[in-house]
């Protein structure tokens, strides 16, 4: 094997510049995340001091103008809607990817892929408006309506990334399993899906991230009542919807409390990413 390091003592100028530029970009990218976190902390500091962290969990309800700041129903709603959507999108999305890759005739597959890409490009407000006019009159503003529209929105993300990761599996794998006499489904289940696991986890993770951060469509169909839903047909409000609904008219502590929503949201995303990372690592090396 040849080493990747150049053998000459001083690397070419262009390389030095490239490395410098790449490092700078990496610093900028991670710096932005840090800055956002610092900004969120600074903006929510007045609320954390003036209201106190525990009251965001223990107050009677979320009525910031009446000095009540409980955010737990919204944390629950965000999680419920995200997991509901991903549970619906995983089988549909991975199923679509498998169909595209291994079952559909090539022409149909490329047509279907183009359709998925189109679906991924539709702005979320358009999904929201469609849901408001078509879904809400039938399902009413509810947790269920939110889950349905969100699963539709993240389906293309999951399907396209799963499809791309299936495409990266070395051809020898399928040739080898065909030579062993495995059927198409046994080959997919026993060889191809396990070797694409890392990519599939990424697909699900990006779907989750999009679902938990989605705002406009959820705001339009979920009813936005702050409560723990007793059933799928109850209205709920997510953390993102809370920020979008109230930010433009909030002042002082109320505004700062909304930044605490943002902070909680960021915490949830970090938690989800950490869990997903842990899951995919554990399985690969186990």
């Amino acid at each position, binding site marked *: 094997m040849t080493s990747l390091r150049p053998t000459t003592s001083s690397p070419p100028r262009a390389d*030095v510049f490239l490395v410098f530029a790449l490092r700078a970009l990496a610093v900028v990218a991670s710096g932005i995340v840090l800055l956002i976190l610092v900004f969120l902390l600074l903006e929510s500091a007045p609320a954390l001091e003036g209201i106190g962290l525990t009251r965001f969990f223990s107050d009677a309800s979320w*009525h910031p103008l009446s000095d009540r700041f409980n955010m737990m129903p919204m944390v629950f709603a965000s999680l419920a809607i995200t997991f509901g959507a991903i549970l619906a999108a995983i089988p549909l999305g991975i199923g679509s990817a498998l169909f595209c890759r291994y079952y559909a005739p090539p022409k149909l597959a490329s047509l279907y892929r183009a359709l998925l890409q189109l679906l991924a490009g539709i702005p979320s407000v358009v999904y929201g408006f469609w849901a408001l006019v078509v879904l809400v009159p039938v399902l*009413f503003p509810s947790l269920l309506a939110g889950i349905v529209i969100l699963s539709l929105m993240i389906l293309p993300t999951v399907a396209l990334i799963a499809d791309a990761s299936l495409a990266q599996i070395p051809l020898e794998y399928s040739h080898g399993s065909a030579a062993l006499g495995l059927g198409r489904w046994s080959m997919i289940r026993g060889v191809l899906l396990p070797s694409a696991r890392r990519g599939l986890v990424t697909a699900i993770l990006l779907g989750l991230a999009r679902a938990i951060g989605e705002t406009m469509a959820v*705001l339009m169909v979920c009813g*936005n009542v702050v409560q723990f839903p007793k059933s799928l047909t109850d209205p709920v409000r997510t953390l993102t919807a809370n920020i979008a609904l109230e930010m433009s008219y909030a002042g002082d502590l109320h505004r700062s409390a909304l930044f605490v929503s943002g902070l909680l949201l960021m915490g949830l995303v970090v938690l989800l990413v950490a869990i997903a990372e842990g899951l995919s690592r554990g399985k690969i090396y186990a």
Partner: protein
Amino acid sequence: MKRFLVLTVGLLLLSLGSWIGWKTISRAQNRRLVLTGSSTIAPLAVEIGRRFEALHPGLRVDVQTGGSSRGIADARRGIADIGMASRRLKTSEKELLVHTIARDGICMVLHAGNPVSSLSDSQIVGIYTGKIQNWKEVGGKDAAIFVLNKAEGRGTLEVFLKFFGLENPSIHADAIVGDNEQGIKTIAGNPNAIGYLSIGTAEYDQKHGVPIKLLPSHAVQASTETLAAGTFPISRPLNLVTKGVPSGIAKTFIEFCQAKDVHDLIKAHYFVPATR
């Protein structure tokens, strides 16, 4: 490589220096007009201020929120040139001079197919506190009432609560909406819904074929005309207040706020220009 670094750092320092210089110069040059108070008026005042600044170079209109009471207090103590108050003044505040620039009003809105044509104040309170749950109790069909409320902090919510003497935590809503447009879409899609909306928006949408119905209040028709005339009950004036007769740039600004030039901005915020 070194030259590149020196160049970058130099450029950065240069731009920083010129930015600071420009800031100090522009601050020294600027005269400032300070407005504080109602967060309902503030967004409108910011936009009017921007247009006003374009007409008067070197002037900065500084708008700060903090509620009507702060606007009145600041105007009284001379901290602000002009206070903003989205309510009538109390008798104890009568020494301030009031300049009404617009009116803000809300009306109850139903789906056009709902046979109910008017509701009394106590019926509306009953519906919003969950004591009345079915339309047949107020003369309508046998169907559950779908109650729409607004998100906290919205001006329309504030007007609604104040007029009907309600506290927001006591309201049982089936859905909470943000802006008027979302409210209208929800009511238009649900024959059993009730909500309240800015009169300006509701009237506009109804004229353009959206199936909604504007309910009268105290037998006064809900329309921008009755609102502008001040006869529609669920409304409030949007006032600028000054300590004594305004002079100089404050006077010019108040006159600008009341002129036809800003009617488009007022309407864009779903208020109606005040008729004098």
